[in-house]
C-alpha cells in the first residue's frame, strides 16, 4: 500500500515533468510541420522565457499571474526574431535544385544551431554561467496534500497552465483562420500559396506560437526548481526533441503522449536507479522507437510538398 502511494506520487511528478517536455515538444512539432526543419534554438527560447520571467520578478515583483503574459510576449518576440535571423534567409531559393538539396537543409539546421549558441553566449555574458536563485516568494515548491499524496504547488501550476495552453492551441488550430492556415502550410506549402496564404507570415506566426509555449515551460520549471541558468534549456530541449521524433515528427497528440511517457518513465526510474541513469531511459526509448516504429509511434508517413 505504501509502495503504491509512493508510485502514484512518482507518476504525478513524472506527469508534471512530462507536461513541460510536451509544451516544448509542441513547439518543435509545429515548427517542423511548417518548415520540415528542426529548430535547434528551441531550447534557448525556453531559457529566455525563464530569464525574462526572473527579470520581471526581480524588477517589478508582480503577482505570479502577471508574469505569464510577459513571458508569453517575450517568447513570441524571440520566436519572430529567430525566424528572421536563422530561417527566412534560406527561403529565397525557389529552384528545384536548392529546394531538394541536403546542403540547403543542413545550412538551415546549422543556422539555428548558430543562433542558439550566440543566444546562450549572450545570456552567459549578461547573467553569468551560474545558477540564479528565484526569490522565495515566487518559488513553487510548497507541498499540498491531496488525500494521501503530497503534490508540489509547482506541479499543480504546471498542470493548470499546460491544460490552458493545450486547450488554447487546439482552439487556435481547429477553430480559427490562422490555425487553418498553419495546418494548410504544414500539409502542403505549395498548395497553401495557390490558395493565397502568405506563407512567410504563417511561418512567423507558427514560430511565435511555438516559442510562447517553450518560453512558458522555461519559467514554470525555473520557479519549480528555484534555479535558472543559461544552460537550463539543453536537457529539456533534447527530451522534447526525442518526444517529437517518437511521436512521428508531425503529430501534436503523438508528441504530447510521448513527452508524458518520457516524463513518467524518468520519474519512476530515478526511484530504482541513481538519477544519473535517468537520461538513459530517454535515449533507450528513442532507440527502441526508431528500431520498431521508424515512422514514430503516432506517425503516418508525412506527405511532402
Amino acid at each position, binding site marked *: 500500500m505504501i509502495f503504491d502511494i509512493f508510485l502514484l506520487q512518482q507518476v504525478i511528478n513524472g506527469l508534471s515533468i512530462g507536461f513541460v517536455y510536451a509544451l516544448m515538444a509542441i513547439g518543435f512539432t509545429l515548427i517542423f510541420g511548417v518548415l520540415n526543419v528542426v529548430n535547434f534554438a528551441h531550447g534557448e527560447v525556453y531559457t529566455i522565457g525563464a530569464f525574462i520571467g526572473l527579470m520581471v520578478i526581480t524588477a517589478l515583483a508582480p503577482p505570479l499571474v502577471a508574469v505569464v503574459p510577459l513571458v508569453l510576449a517575450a517568447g513570441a518576440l524571440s520566436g519572430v526574431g529567430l525566424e528572421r535571423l536563422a530561417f527566412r534567409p534560406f527561403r529565397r531559393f*525557389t529552384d*528545384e535544385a536548392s529546394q531538394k538539396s541536403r546542403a540547403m537543409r543542413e545550412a538551415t539546421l546549422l543556422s539555428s544551431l548558430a543562433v542558439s549558441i550566440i543566444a546562450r553566449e549572450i545570456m552567459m555574458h549578461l547573467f553569468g554561467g551560474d545558477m540564479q536563485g528565484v526569490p522565495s516568494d515566487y518559488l513553487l515548491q510548497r507541498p499540498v496534500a491531496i488525500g494521501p499524496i503530497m503534490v508540489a504547488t509547482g506541479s499543480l501550476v504546471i498542470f493548470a497552465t499546460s491544460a490552458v495552453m493545450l486547450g488554447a492551441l487546439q482552439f487556435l488550430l481547429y477553430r480559427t*483562420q490562422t490555425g*487553418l492556415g498553419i495546418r*494548410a502550410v504544414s*500539409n502542403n506549402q505549395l*498548395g*497553401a*500559396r495557390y490558395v493565397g*496564404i502568405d506563407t512567410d507570415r504563417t511561418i512567423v506566426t507558427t514560430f511565435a506560437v511555438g516559442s510562447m509555449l517553450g518560453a512558458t515551460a522555461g519559467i514554470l520549471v525555473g520557479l519549480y526548481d528555484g534555479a535558472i541558468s543559461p544552460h537550463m534549456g539543453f536537457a529539456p530541449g533534447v527530451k522534447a526533441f526525442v518526444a517529437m521524433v517518437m511521436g512521428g515528427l508531425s503529430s501534436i497528440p503523438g508528441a504530447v503522449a510521448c513527452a508524458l511517457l518520457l516524463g513518467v518513465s524518468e520519474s519512476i526510474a530515478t526511484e530504482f536507479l541513481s538519477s544519473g541513469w535517468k537520461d538513459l531511459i530517454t535515449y533507450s526509448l528513442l532507440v527502441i522507437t526508431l528500431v520498431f516504429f521508424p515512422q514514430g509511434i503516432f506517425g503516418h508517413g508525412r506527405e511532402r510538398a
Partner: protein
Amino acid sequence: MPLDAVTDTTTTAVRRILEVRDLKVRMGSQEILRGVSLDVREGSIVAVLGANGVGKTSLMRALSGIYRTTGGTTVFAGQDLTNSPSHAVVKLGLAQAPEGRQIFGTMTVRENLLLGGRVRSQDRAARMEAMLELFPRLRERLSQKAGSLSGGEQQMLCIARALMSKPRLLLLDEPSLGLAPMVVKQIFDLLVQIRSEGTSILLVEQNARAALRVADHAYVMEAGRVTLSGNAAELAADPRVQAAYLGG
C-alpha cells in the same frame, strides 16, 4: 452625354483579362521561359499546348506569383501583376488549379474548400454551396480527408477550391492528367459551364484534342517560347499541330 460615348467605344473594343508580354523565367543558368507573350480575352477559354518540359507549368507558376520572372510584364484586369507575391495575385482574382493538384490531403474536403475561399470571406457559405451544386460528388465527401478521394474527385476538388475565391481568371494546369476519358470529358464540360458563368479560363494541356474542343483560342509552346497561335478551330486543322499533338 459625350462621356458615355467615350465609354461605349472602349467597351466594344475587345477586353483582355490577361496580357502577358515577353515573360522570362530563369532558374540558375537555365532559361526556362524565353519571352512568352499571350492574351486571354474576357469570357474566353484559351489553351496552351506543348510537349513535356517546354515550360508550360513554369509559365503558370510565374503567372500565379510562385516563380519570380526575370523579364517581361503581366497585366491582369488592367493591373500590373509582374512579380506580385502569390497571395496578392489570388486576392486580385486570379486563381489556379495547379499541376499535381496540390490539395491538402490530410485535411477534409470542407477545409480544402474553406481555404480556397479564404481571400473572399464575406460570401463563403454561398460560394461553398455553389461549388457543391457544380460538383455534387464533393458534397458526399465533405467530411472525408481529401487524400482519400479518387483522382477525378481530387481534380474536381482542386478546381472547386480555386473557384472558391471567385476568380475572374482561372488557370488550369493539365486537369486531365491521369484521369479516365469519361472523367476528362466531364471536367471539360464543366469548364464550358464555368466560362458561361463569367470566369475566363487559361488552360495548359497535353491532351490537345480535349483542349482544342473547348478552347476559343490556343497557343503552342516549344522550348520556352510560343511558336504558334490562333483560333482553336484553325489550329486543330493545322497540319503541323495535327502531326505533333493530335497524333497525325
